[in-house]
C-alpha cells in the first residue's frame, strides 16, 4: 500500500542537496520585473535582492507595492497558479520558480499566507501536517514524530487533535507555520502572517517568527551598527539571540533562509537582519542591514506610509535614548507639550445626545443569541471603538445595530435613519457595474434629489474620481476599501458602523481612514468601529466598548479602558509599546497620547532622508 518512494527519504532532501547557488544565496533576484493579473499591471520593477542561506529578509513597503506578489513569485505561484509575467533573473533554492512546478518547488520553498483560515486544507490539525509530509513522500514511520516535533516547536502541540475550523486566528496561523516547517524547507516565505490576527494572536505569531529569524550574521555583523540609540536595539535583538533552532542547527545542510513580508513590526519583537524597502511602483528604495536601512530611511519610509518600529521612530525623531529611560520620558513629555493641543479631543463623547440606543439588546443567529444583554448608547459626535478577541461577537453586534440580523430587546435609532455600515470584506458589498453606480446606489433608493452632484463630490473626496467608470471588482483592495467607505458616507449617515475598516492597510491609508471617520463624528455623526489596532483606538476613539463572549463587558473612555490591565488581559488586548509607555509613565507626566503621536510623526517626516543605499 505504501508507494515506491516510502522509506527512501523524501524528495525535499534530494532536491535541496542539488542545485543551491554557488554563492550561498538561497534566494536571489536580479532585475525582476513582474506584471500580474489579466490587466497585466506592473507591480514589481527592477527588483534586485539576495538572501543568503541562514539569514532572514524583511520586506516592507506601502499597500500595493508588490510585496505579496514578490512572495508569490518566490513560491512559483505567480505565474504558474495565478496569472502574471515574470521577467529577469530569479532563483530560489537553486531552482527557477517559473519552471519548477509549484508543488515540486514546495519541497524546498514553504509559503505561509495572510489568511489563517484559507491555508488549512484539512479538518484536523495533525492531518494538516501529515498531509504536508505525505505529499513530499516522507517515510511513514517518521511522520508521527515529525508532526509532534513541528507542532511543539510552534507552541501548538496541545492542539494536535483539534478541528482546524475551531482554532483562533493566532492558533490557526501557528498551525500553518508548523505545517510549513514540518518538511524542513530550505526557504520559508511568509506573506503578512499577522495581518488578520488580534493583538494577542499577532504577538504569539510574532514571537514564533522571532525564533525563526534569530540567527542572522548579516544583521549582527553590520559594520556600522550604532553603539547607542534606538537602532542598536534592532541589531541587538538580532545578534543577541542564541541558536536554538534544533531542526536546522544540527544537520549539515545550509540553514534556512526566510523572506518575511510584514508591516506590524512592533508585534514582531525581533526583526530579521536584512530589510528590503519597496515604493509604490514596486521599485527598490533600499536593501541592506535592517538597522541601517530603517535608520537612514526612516523619513522616506514614513512618507511611503509604512509602519516603523517604535525604536526607530523615536531615534528618527531625535529621542535621547530608548523608551523607558529617564531622559526619553522627559523628552517625550516635552515634545507633546511643545506640539500643543491640536488633536481635537472630542467633548461630544461625554455630552452628545444618543444617536442610537440599545437596551437589553440581543442579536441572534440561527435562532440562538450570539450577542446578549447589551446596554449601549452611541452618541452623536463620538467615535466608539469595539474591541475584543476574535470570535467574541463584535461583528455580530454591529450587524444587529445596523438592523440586519434578527434582534430582541430595544433598539432606538434617534434622528434620521439610515444606519450605514462598512463590512470587513469590501467585495461582499459590491452590487453595481461601475464605481459611480455603486456610490449612487443608496442615494437613488433614498430618492435624494441631487444624486449626481452628491456622488461626484463623494468620489472626489475619496480620491476615486478617476475610477468612476471602472468595474468595482477590478479595483485593488485598498481602492475597494475607499469605495465602500465612500458608499457608506454618501448620504451623510447619522450613524456609521465600520467593521475593521483599516486591517491590512498600510499606515498612511489607515490614518487616512481614521481621519475620515473622525471628520464624520466631528460633523455630528456617531461612529462605531471594530478594530484590533489599539494604537488606532488610542488615537481615534473617544470611548471603547469591550466585547467578550457575546457580552459588552465594559464601556468607558478610551484612556480608562486601555489603562485597565485586568480588562486588557481578559479581552486579549496587548498594548503596543508607545501606548504601554503612556499608560505606565506618560499619563502621569500629563502627556496627551494623540498629540504625542502627531508630534512624533511630524518630527520623523521633517528629518531629511539620507541618500539612498542601494546594494
Amino acid at each position, binding site marked *: 500500500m505504501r508507494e515506491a518512494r516510502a522509506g527512501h527519504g523524501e524528495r525535499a532532501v534530494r532536491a535541496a542537496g542539488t542545485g543551491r547557488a554557488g554563492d550561498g544565496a538561497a534566494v536571489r533576484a536580479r532585475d525582476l520585473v513582474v506584471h500580474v493579473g489579466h490587466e497585466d499591471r506592473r507591480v514589481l520593477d527592477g527588483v534586485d535582492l539576495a538572501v543568503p542561506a541562514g539569514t532572514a529578509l524583511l520586506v516592507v513597503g506601502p499597500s500595493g507595492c508588490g510585496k505579496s506578489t514578490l512572495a508569490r513569485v518566490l513560491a512559483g505561484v505567480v505565474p504558474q*497558479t495565478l496569472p502574471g509575467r515574470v521577467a529577469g533573473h530569479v532563483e530560489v533554492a537553486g531552482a527557477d520558480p517559473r519552471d519548477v512546478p509549484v508543488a515540486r518547488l514546495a519541497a524546498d520553498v514553504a509559503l505561509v499566507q495572510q489568511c489563517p483560515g484559507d491555508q488549512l486544507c484539512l479538518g484536523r490539525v495533525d492531518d494538516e501536517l501529515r498531509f*504536508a509530509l505525505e505529499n513530499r513522500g516522507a517515510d511513514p514511520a517518521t511522520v508521527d514524530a515529525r508532526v509532534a516535533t513541528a507542532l511543539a516547536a510552534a507552541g501548538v502541540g496541545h492542539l494536535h487533535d483539534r478541528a482546524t475550523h475551531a482554532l483562533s486566528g493566532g492558533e490557526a496561523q501557528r498551525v500553518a507555520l508548523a505545517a510549513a516547517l514540518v*518538511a524542513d524547507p530550505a526557504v520559508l516565505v511568509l506573506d503578512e502572517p499577522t495581518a488578520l490576527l488580534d493583538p494577542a494572536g499577532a504577538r504569539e505569531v510574532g514571537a514564533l517568527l522571532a525564533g525563526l529569524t534569530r540567527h542572522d550574521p548579516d544583521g549582527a555583523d553590520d559594520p556600522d551598527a550604532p553603539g547607542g540609540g534606538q537602532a542598536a536595539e534592532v541589531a541587538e535583538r538580532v545578534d543577541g539571540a542564541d541558536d536554538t533552532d534544533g531542526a536546522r542547527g544540527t544537520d549539515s545542510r545550509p540553514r534556512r533562509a526566510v523572506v518575511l513580508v510584514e508591516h506590524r513590526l512592533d508585534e514582531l519583537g525581533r526583526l530579521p537582519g536584512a530589510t528590503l524597502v519597496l515604493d509604490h511602483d514596486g521599485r527598490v528604495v533600499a536593501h541592506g542591514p535592517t538597522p541601517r536601512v530603517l535608520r537612514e530611511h526612516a523619513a522616506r519610509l514614513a512618507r511611503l506610509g509604512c509602519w516603523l518600529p517604535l525604536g526607530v521612530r523615536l531615534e528618527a525623531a531625535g529621542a535621547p535614548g530608548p523608551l523607558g529611560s529617564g531622559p526619553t520620558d522627559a523628552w517625550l513629555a516635552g515634545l507633546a507639550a511643545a506640539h500643543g493641543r491640536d488633536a481635537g479631543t472630542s467633548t461630544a463623547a461625554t455630552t452628545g445626545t444618543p444617536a442610537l440606543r440599545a437596551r437589553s439588546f440581543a442579536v441572534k443567529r440561527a435562532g440562538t443569541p450570539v450577542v446578549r444583554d447589551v446596554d449601549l448608547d452611541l452618541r452623536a459626535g463620538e467615535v466608539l471603538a469595539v474591541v475584543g478577541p476574535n470570535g467574541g461577537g463584535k461583528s455580530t453586534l454591529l450587524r444587529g445595530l*445596523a438592523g440586519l440580523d434578527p434582534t430582541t430587546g430595544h433598539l432606538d435609532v434617534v434622528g434620521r435613519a439610515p444606519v450605514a455600515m462598512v463590512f470587513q470584506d469590501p467585495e461582499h458589498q459590491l452590487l453595481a457595474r461601475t464605481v459611480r453606480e455603486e456610490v449612487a446606489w443608496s442615494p437613488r433608493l433614498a430618492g435624494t434629489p441631487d444624486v449626481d452632484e452628491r456622488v461626484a463630490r463623494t468620489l472626489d473626496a475619496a480620491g476615486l474620481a478617476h475610477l468612476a467608470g471602472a468595474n468595482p471588482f477590478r479595483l485593488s483592495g485598498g481602492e475597494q476599501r475607499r469605495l465602500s467607505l465612500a458608499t457608506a458616507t454618501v448620504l451623510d449617515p447619522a450613524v456609521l458602523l465600520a467593521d475593521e475598516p483599516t486591517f491590512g492597510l498600510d499606515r498612511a491609508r489607515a490614518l487616512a481612514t481614521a481621519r475620515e471617520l473622525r471628520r464624520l463624528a466631528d460633523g455630528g455623526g456617531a461612529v462605531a468601529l471594530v478594530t484590533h489596532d489599539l494604537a488606532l483606538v488610542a488615537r481615534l476613539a473617544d470611548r471603547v466598548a469591550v466585547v467578550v463572549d457575546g457580552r459588552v463587558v465594559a464601556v468607558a473612555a478610551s484612556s480608562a479602558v486601555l489603562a485597565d490591565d485586568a480588562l486588557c488581559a481578559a479581552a486579549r488586548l496587548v498594548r503596543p509599546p508607545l501606548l504601554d509607555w503612556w499608560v505606565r509613565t506618560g499619563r502621569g507626566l500629563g502627556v496627551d497620547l494623540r498629540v504625542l503621536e502627531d508630534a512624533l510623526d511630524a518630527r520623523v517626516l521633517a528629518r531629511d532622508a539620507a541618500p539612498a543605499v542601494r546594494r
Partner: protein
Amino acid sequence: MSPLERWNPTVKLATVLVLSTAVLLVTDPVTPAIGHGLAVAALVGLGRVPLRTVVLGHAPFLAVAASLLVVNVVTRTGGETVAVGPLAVGADGLAVGASLALRTLFVGVLSLTLVLTTDPVRLMTSLHEHARLPATWTFAVLAAHRLLEELPATWHTVRCAQAVWDPRRTPGTLPRSPRALGAAAFALLVAAVRRSERLAVAMESRGLGSGPRTVSRPVPLGPPDVLAAVAVLAVAAGVAVLGAHAGWLTGVDALVR
C-alpha cells in the same frame, strides 16, 4: 470506533452502491421495507448512531417518498379498487407507489450510513489507496467540502453587506427580490472563486501533486472488510430469495403492466 466506522470506506461505499442499484430492480413494497428495517437496525446496532439522529435524518427522504407515493396512486388506476379512508385508489398504483417510496427510504438510510459512519479523510485516503483515485482529486474533494461548509455563512454575510445599502430597509429582514438575490449570488461567486484560489495555492504549497506520495495512516483493507461485504450481499440475496418463494417479489415488469 463502531464496526461500521471501522469498515473500510471504499468497500462500504461499493457495497452501498451495489445495494442501491439492486433495489432499483425491485417494484414490490415488501422487499425494500425489509431492506429498510435491516439497514436502520444495522445503523443503530453496528453504527452506534442514536435512533433520534436516524429518525431526523429521514426528513428529506420522507418528503421525496411521500410525493412518489401520491404521484403513483393518482396516475396508476389499474388493479382492484382499494379503499384508503374516504378515497378509492387502484391497487397497482398503491403497490408501485409504496415500493418506490420505501425504496427511497432504503437508499436514504444507506446514504445516512455512509455519511454518519465515515470520516471524510479516511474515505479519501482509502479511495486513493484502494480505488486508485489520484491524490490531487481526492484532496480537491476534501477542500471543496470545506468550502461548501462555509458557503452558507458567506451567503448570509454578503446579503447583509448588500442589504445595508438600502436606506428604506426593514430591520431584521433581508431583501428577497430576484435582483437582490442575483447581486448577492454574484458577490458570493466572486468570494468563492477567490477563496478556492487561495486554497489551491495552499494545497500546492503543501506539495500536493509533486509526485508519488506516502500514506502515514493507511486505512486497513483486510479479509474482515471483504467478509462484511459478502455477508451484507448474502443477506440481501436471502431477502430476494425469500420474497421469490413467498411470492411477493416483483421486478421491473410490474411497472409496465
